[in-house]
């Protein structure tokens, strides 16, 4: 048992670190700013791509490095350590791109993949709908084949992160309502600037607007933009979702604020609290920090698996469950120790970071798989507990609406 890099990993780490150091000022800082400047973010990702730090695990023919998940984890760690902001095309890299790699035509792969990695195109994932969130396969957005072989698409998607700046999206549609709901789906690549696509930003409870609702009114999509076979969209979507699981909440990276930054903040405020409150604050800090440490070392177990070339299974979902909980506990304490300022949107000297964080975190337990869905996955696929009965089993999609 050890926590050391192998010689190869150490060499890669120092290469990554050197690049980040050399370009430190160009890469910008992580800020609490609400508005995303997507042009700056695109340029940053292009710089990182040209330095070999984006698409590490993607095959070389897709524009990637053909590297290992461990090398990707090292890039993530070093980016976090250096305080470099995250990639704008994270969803593209983690979910859309792998779907195109697995199910796209040669032509699609050539047109899209490298541009995605350089953030020349930003991508979004058009899955959830107003009437189908966790129950994704119940979606209603309709794609109908026209006489010339192209498709006309109508419907509405929602909670679509980055749709307001995106160039392309992967879009899951219903092409056959007369079969069981999982069977009648088909996936497409859609041009977000095409006529009939309307994007409306949705403001979140934190006040920022990172996600959107997207309307499709008779949007024409050529058949060459189909991903996978007609009616095979569910299997294609599973590729996307499996890739998502691997890109969320694993490897010991922290969700929300780092435990270290919360400890520093709490330490600075602790002495100002009445004695009894100090003891309570220490209990809360102790409990949430034990959770943070447990997440970190559980993440190291995952990384060790990855380092040996094994792929984590459904148990990796536990990292998002516990990670979001710890992040919320830490943020709650960070706000509490502000004293009277804790009830205001910002402290008297104008800083609002902790208050904003506490408003962002409830959504983290929903986005990318709700806590309840993750618990079902672990319960059924790790513990072997029986699945829930489904009321729409054995009926066609159309019948399930009746």
């Amino acid at each position, binding site marked *: 048992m050890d926590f050391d890099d192998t010689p190869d990993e150490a060499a890669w780490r120092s290469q990554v670190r050197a690049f980040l150091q050399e370009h430190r000022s160009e890469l910008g800082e992580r800020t609490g700013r609400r508005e995303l400047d997507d042009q700056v973010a695109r340029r940053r990702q292009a710089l990182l791509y040209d330095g070999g730090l984006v698409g590490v695990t993607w095959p070389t023919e897709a524009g990637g490095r053909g590297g290992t998940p461990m090398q990707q984890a090292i890039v993530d760690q070093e980016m976090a350590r250096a305080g470099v902001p995250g990639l704008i095309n994270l969803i593209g890299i983690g979910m859309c791109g792998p779907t195109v790699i697995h199910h796209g035509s040669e032509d699609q792969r050539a047109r899209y993949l490298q541009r995605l990695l350089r953030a020349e195109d930003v991508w979004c994932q058009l899955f959830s709908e107003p009437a189908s969130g966790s129950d994704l396969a119940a979606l209603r957005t309709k794609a109908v084949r026209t006489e010339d072989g192209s498709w006309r698409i109508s419907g509405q998607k929602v909670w679509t992160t980055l749709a307001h700046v995106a160039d392309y999206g992967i879009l899951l549609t219903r092409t056959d309502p007369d079969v069981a709901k999982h069977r009648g789906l088909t996936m497409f690549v859609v041009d977000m600037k095409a006529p009939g696509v309307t994007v409306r930003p949705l403001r979140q409870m934190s006040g920022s607007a990172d996600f959107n609702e997207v309307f499709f009114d008779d949007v024409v999509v050529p058949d060459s933009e189909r991903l996978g076979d007609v009616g095979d969209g569910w299997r294609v979507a599973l590729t996307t979702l499996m890739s998502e699981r691997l890109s969320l909440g694993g490897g010991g990276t922290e969700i929300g604020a780092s435990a270290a930054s919360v400890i520093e903040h709490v330490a600075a405020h602790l002495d100002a609290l009445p004695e009894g409150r100090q003891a309570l604050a*220490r209990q809360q800090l*102790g*409990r949430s920090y034990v959770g943070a440490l447990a997440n970190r070392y559980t993440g*190291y177990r995952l990384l*060790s698996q990855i380092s040996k070339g094994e792929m984590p299974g459904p148990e990796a979902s536990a990292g998002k469950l516990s990670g979001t909980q710890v992040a919320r506990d830490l943020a709650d304490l960070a706000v509490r120790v502000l004293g009277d300022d804790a009830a205001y949107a910002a402290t008297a000297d104008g800083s609002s970071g902790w208050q904003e964080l506490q408003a962002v975190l409830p959504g983290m337990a929903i986005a990318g798989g709700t806590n309840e869905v993750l618990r*079902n996955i672990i319960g059924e696929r790790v513990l072997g*507990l029986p699945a829930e009965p489904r009321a729409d089993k054995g009926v066609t999609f159309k019948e399930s609406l009746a």
Partner: protein
Amino acid sequence: MNFDLDDEQRDLAAAARDFLSGAAAPGDARAALDDGAPVRPGRAALVESGFATITVPEDAGGGGGSVLDLAVVAEQAGRVLAGPSLVTYARAAVLFAGDGDRLAALADGSLSLAVVDGGPTLDAAGAERFLALRGDDVVLAAGRATVRDAIDPTRGLGNVELDTNDLQVVAADARSRWQHAERVGRVVLAAEGLGAASRALEIGVEYAQQRLAFGRAIGSYQAVKHSLVDVYVQVEQLRSLVWWAAWAADQAPDELPLAAAAAKAASATTLEQAAETLVQVHGGIGFTWEHDAHLFWRRAKVDRFLLGDDVDAYDEVARLAVAQVSA
């Protein structure tokens, strides 16, 4: 990065499981409560197996292994609620470091010990000599143990009065050694808690798979399924902390205070939740005397107070964290 057990440790775990599942069972705790049956496997069998004294050097007749090795075994001991605790042997091995004769007596079973912290003493029952801190000296003394009605008889708790006329200094000016032994003890206690919690989870899952209500297995209901999943997540998190803390005891003494406190605290919380969940998942049978659920619950209700309670351990984690950033 290789934060995983190696093949030898997996083999060790399998061998320990073989031995312990034959030598003890949760039901033994009930027999001890019912009619004072002896705790199993008991001191003699534990020592004879060699598992108890894994951390004693080989030239003193021990296993010459690491704290991590012992933690791997302790997890297996926790699964069957074995007694006495490997914590006692782990602490004694640290406190006797360099003292070949006493280590040999520990390893051959001629020395039956408990380690006294003040308050209820773990494994006081059946102990003939007692290790304690007097001033800054570690001493080995005769004494009298008053064993009182037990919540968990496998822990052999009692109040100990030392006989100061029959007392030898084991190590003078050895407060830091005492603290180190206590921390190693916390790691091993957490490992026993890990085993008990993961076994409690398994029993709960098995029952939820087969028990039917309203025409289907209760484990298909989210209320039941999710409470078991929450225990699973906690158990795996505890496993990570136990491995880290054991590794720190062997390889990174600077990290041990934080790691041992975190493991101790998490173990108390996790075992309590696992045991409470085990009772609840079983419904009516879950709170009967004849079912094993309460035996795990009893272990949880006692272990949380050993080697400092969970509240102390969480407080220590917070103090260490704050001290780290202030330094």
